[in-house]
């Protein structure tokens, strides 16, 4: 076990009795339970953690939280490998293995750093100005660029972890469990209503966790008391390790709970790795705190340059020293507290360079009292050191913002900086709330809210724990929090960026550390006219890294304002959008993956089909038998055999999935008359009729057979794929347009199992299974229905046919479906009964020239196009009728349904093949139509095809050309009814 040379002997939240072993870039190291990967690395003296996106510059740890731009790691390997995790957020577990991202061969020696040597060649947007030769050459350059870009790597193999998604409702959602959030939750919780308190850290307390000396304000004890009160309230749910990341309309918020990430790959398998919370809150209190800003000086990106408050957190909360000799650069008081805490723990504070000319007040006094060297009107203007900062160059800054006096190099291994604090207004802005720029505080603060949301604490400009607690209490009780308190000391807001001491330094003042956007890049963008803050963002990539600009955006806006000579509020901010913090795809998908990706709907006979070796077809969510191959059979063999069985003997097909709708009421006939193109008044009880539905645009929507069950009761069938759409569509007409019609619609699709029994032997099979239905043609003619019993089950039998053969559809209550199927199979054995699938059904109906919705139609086909004028009422209105009379619908050259007889009878044209009037002569060709259905017809011993062709059957007997892969087939346009055109067989 290696020592942790930078670990303090006492203090912090870490558990020194639980050492944890981990590896970083292959090096074995040790930390303690309670560490983050970042704090453990610092305790081991590791500062070089990663490489930057563009220039591959060495980078260390800037922050102690979600806002980290630099310290990105790839965690673990194989199918659990996760890219781009922030070391500041990764909780240490035993055996953790992390590597740096975006460097090759390693983080210490990275070949990509060559780019940094020629950085002047590749300023912001350089790629828009070159790589244009030769034409189309970008695809070549892009390969190189892509390899250089991209940070971490995608995992290898499917994710073995589980993800959960859940819904919660509450009266108050409190985001952030710092002093303001805790106080808000407690005040709200006392009302007894449902409260959710969510915080991204493993422990509630927020910034208070990083403070040891609270100077009499609420501290650790207060957190403890508040938490125990909250935990005693059954109406309060405290979610830790939970980041509220999206704020949507109507107070809908999304949070991600990291349930087992801190346990690593050994987490219990039954627990989800992460849980996505979908929260609907009556009211939201945002206590999201504030984020410290970096300062923009030359080479402010070296490992060892750190935000002051982050250093304080590492020392106080994690007992890890980020260095031994520090230079501090600040424009506000908060860095003094950090300096003092570090000083107390043995870090030598070489100097505090304060941009304010005359730092005064308690912070400066305390620092002076501790003997720290305060340099008013000074700043760090440059740093040196390759993989770790070795010195900071400090110089005076004049009143005009320029360098003044000599530059002194101060030896150090740590530079602390503080550019002030930006309220974390991200969620407030996502909620639609307006921001305002507060001149006194020099920050964007929440202004007018658009949703029921209040801000409390540092996000609202409150300064100090006591003020935050007060605001939290107010917000939690539903009162408007008091206005922001005055800042402890005014900040110097005019030093963005801090002047460089030489030319080269001017190009190395980093604003966005992850994407390597410098102050010079911003100046360049402004000079080139990319002056809107959105143009700036897009041109320079400012704020577009995985940290989403949490540290860089406000300094970037300040530099932009400076370049434009405009006041900062006039520049404004870019739009804040979800998510606040990146969200795992798996958590968003929840359990809608793998076997639960989408429901699989199976009919009551499904098990039989599986047993029979059926190949299934997806039709919507349904699984339908496509065909039933016997051993050694190809699809074509099987389908041909199934078709011949229906033509010559008898077949049975599972027709359960067709939609069934009971239409009842006095207005039922009137309703059908309006919905269908044909008339329904004269349909007798006991009879069925085929109907065609159009959209109001005149295009064919659906078709099916409807039976009259009683005077005011019909059973309508729809196609499988359209079942729910048609029902919804009918309901819409009824409820919105025709409320006066007395009609009720009830779906009966799931109530019945339906078997189609088709073929010349169908009657023989059926008659053997029923004693109370007379199946003779006279008693039970084509297009009628009867009820009785089949195989002992109560049944409705419809004599309808889609195959052109004598056929029955038998419906029984779904529970009996499998038994009915089995009984029919047994009964038909002697007749050679054969199960057939959807493909055989398609062939059989195509031989008859019957339309299949979705195959002959595609939303652009009218009944006239299909040659179905016979089904259109002449006088009375129906949905879609008027559209059929529009001028373009009368064009004689519209595509109309025809049959196609190939010259070569063996040739089965591919469906979708295009039809030309003449032999092809080279593109673009004149296409006059396409093949909609095409099959081998076993009974006709030739291929049959249906097509939509311009001019339709006016072209009958003419020859058309069908280009295939490498050749052109010829075919003759013909009557689409290839088989039994007079329908003698189905009436027999």
């Amino acid at each position, binding site marked *: 076990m290696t020592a942790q040379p930078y670990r303090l002997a006492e203090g912090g939240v870490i558990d020194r009795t639980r050492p944890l072993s981990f590896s970083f870039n292959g090096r074995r190291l040790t930390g303690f339970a309670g560490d983050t990967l970042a704090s453990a690395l610092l305790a081991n003296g590791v500062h070089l953690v990663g490489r930057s996106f563009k220039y591959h510059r060495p980078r260390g740890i800037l922050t102690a939280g979600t806002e980290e731009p630099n310290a990105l790691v790839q965690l673990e390997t194989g199918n659990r490998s996760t890219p781009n995790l922030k070391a500041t957020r990764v909780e240490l577990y035993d055996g953790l293995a992390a590597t740096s991202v975006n460097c090759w061969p390693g983080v210490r020696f990275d070949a990509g750093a060559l780019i940094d040597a020629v950085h002047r060649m590749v300023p912001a947007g350089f790629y828009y100005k070159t790589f244009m030769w030769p034409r189309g050459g970008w695809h070549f350059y892009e390969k190189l660029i892509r390899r250089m870009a991209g940070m971490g790597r995608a995992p290898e193999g499917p994710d073995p972890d589980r993800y959960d998604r859940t819904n919660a409702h509450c009266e108050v959602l409190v985001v952030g469990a710092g002093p303001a959030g805790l106080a808000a939750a407690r005040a709200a919780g006392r009302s007894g209503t449902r409260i959710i308190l969510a915080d991204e850290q493993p422990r509630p307390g927020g910034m208070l966790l990083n403070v040891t000396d609270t100077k009499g304000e609420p501290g650790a004890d207060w957190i403890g008391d508040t938490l125990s009160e909250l935990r005693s309230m059954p109406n309060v749910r405290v979610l830790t390790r939970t980041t509220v990341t999206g704020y*949507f*309309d*109507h*107070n*809908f918020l999304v949070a991600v709970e990291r349930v087992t990430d801190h346990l690593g790959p050994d987490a219990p398998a039954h627990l989800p790795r992460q849980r996505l919370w*979908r929260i*609907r809150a009556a009211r939201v209190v945002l206590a999201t705190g504030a984020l410290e800003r970096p300062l923009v000086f030359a080479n402010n990106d070296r490992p060892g340059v750190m935000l002051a408050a982050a250093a304080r957190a590492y020392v106080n909360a994690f007992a890890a020293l980020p260095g031994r000799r520090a230079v501090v650069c600040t424009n506000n008081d908060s860095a003094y507290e950090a300096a003092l805490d570090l000083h107390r723990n043995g870090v030598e504070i070489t100097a505090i360079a304060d941009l304010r000319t005359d730092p005064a007040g308690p912070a400066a006094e305390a620092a002076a009292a501790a003997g720290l060297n305060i340099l008013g009107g000074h700043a760090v203007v440059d740093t040196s050191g390759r993989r770790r900062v070795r010195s900071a160059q400090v110089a005076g800054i004049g009143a005009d913002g320029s360098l003044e006096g000599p530059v002194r190099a101060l030896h150090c291994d740590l530079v602390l900086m503080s550019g002030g604090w930006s309220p974390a207004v991200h969620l407030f802005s996502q909620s*639609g709330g307006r921001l305002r720029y507060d001149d006194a505080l020099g920050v964007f603060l929440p202004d007018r809210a*658009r949703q029921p949301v209040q801000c409390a604490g540092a996000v609202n400009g409150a300064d100090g724990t006591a003020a935050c607690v007060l605001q939290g209490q107010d917000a939690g009780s539903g009162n408007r929090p008091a206005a922001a308190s005055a800042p402890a000391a005014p900040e110097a807001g005019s030093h963005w960026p801090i002047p460089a001491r030489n030319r080269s330094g001017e190009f190395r003042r980093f604003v966005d550390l992850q994407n390597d956007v410098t102050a010079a890049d911003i100046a360049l963008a402004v000079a080139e006219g990319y002056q809107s803050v959105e143009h700036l963002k897009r041109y320079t990539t400012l704020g577009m890294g995985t940290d989403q600009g949490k540290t860089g955006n406000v300094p970037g806006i300040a530099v932009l304002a400076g370049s434009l000579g405009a006041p900062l509020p006039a520049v404004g901010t870019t739009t804040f959008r979800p998510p606040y913090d990146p969200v795992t795809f798996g958590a968003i998908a929840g359990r809608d993956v793998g076997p639960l990706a989408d429901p699989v709907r199976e009919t009551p006979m499904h098990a039989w089909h599986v047993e029979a070796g059926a190949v299934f077809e997806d039709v919507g969510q349904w699984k339908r038998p496509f065909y039933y191959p016997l051993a050694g059979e190809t699809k074509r063999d099987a389908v041909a055999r199934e078709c011949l069985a229906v033509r010559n003997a008898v077949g049975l097909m599972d027709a359960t999935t067709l939609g069934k709708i009971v239409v009842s009421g006095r207005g039922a006939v009137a309703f059908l008359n309006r919905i269908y193109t044909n008339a329904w008044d004269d349909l007798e009880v006991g009879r069925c009729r085929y109907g065609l539905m159009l959209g*109001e*645009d005149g295009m064919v929507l659906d078709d099916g057979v409807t039976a009259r069950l009683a005077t005011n009761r019909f059973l309508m069938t729809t196609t499988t794929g359209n079942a729910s759409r048609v029902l*919804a569509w009918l*309901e*819409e007409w009824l*409820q*919105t*347009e025709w*409320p006066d019609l007395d009609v009720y619609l009830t779906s009966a699709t799931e109530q019945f199992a339906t078997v189609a029994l088709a073929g010349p032997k169908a009657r023989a099979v059926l008659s053997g299974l029923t004693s109370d239905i007379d199946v003779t043609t006279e008693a039970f003619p084509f297009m009628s229905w009867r009820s009785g019993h089949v195989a002992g089950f109560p049944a409705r039998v419809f004599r309808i046919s889609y195959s052109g053969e004598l056929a029955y559809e038998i419906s029984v209550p779904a529970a009996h479906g499998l038994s009915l199927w089995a009984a029919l199979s047994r009964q038909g054995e002697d007749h050679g009964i054969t199960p057939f699938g959807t493909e055989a059904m398609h062939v059989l109906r195509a031989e008859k020239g019957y339309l299949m919705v979705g195959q002959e139609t595609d939303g652009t086909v009218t009944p006239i196009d299909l040659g179905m004028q016979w089904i259109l009422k002449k006088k009375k*209105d129906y949905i879609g*009728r*008027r*559209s059929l*009379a*529009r*001028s373009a619908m009368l064009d004689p050259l519209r595509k109309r349904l025809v049959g196609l007889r190939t010259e070569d009878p063996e040739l089965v044209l591919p469906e979708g093949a295009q039809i030309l009037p003449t032999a092809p002569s080279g593109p673009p060709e004149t296409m006059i139509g396409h093949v909609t259905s095409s099959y081998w017809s076993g009974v006709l011993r030739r291929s049959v095809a249906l097509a939509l062709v311009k001019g339709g059957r006016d072209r009958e007997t003419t020859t058309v050309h069908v280009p295939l892969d490498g050749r052109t087939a010829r075919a003759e346009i013909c009557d689409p009814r290839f088989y039994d055109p007079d329908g003698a067989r189905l009436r027999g």
Partner: protein
Amino acid sequence: MLLISCPWCGQRDESEFTCGGEAHIQRPPDPDALSDPEWADYLFMRTNPKGRHRERWCHTHGCGRWFNVERHTLTHDIISVYRMGEGPADDGDGDPS
């Protein structure tokens, strides 16, 4: 994610509903009397306002009823909800249900 107040069932999540577009478009009583452009106006032309929009929604995965919603297309605020055959509530921003 909208929270929609079904006039029958009360507040439910958007996922239970289907939006049917602009409301109060009456099917012409005598389509044959209309010219092609007049028919197209009924069939296709929409107000599509930026601001208050009266639209039809169906509580598909609830009570199955169609109803009307007046909603602001920029803020997504729901101004009123009313049943089929009723007019919108007065110009308040209250929720009548």
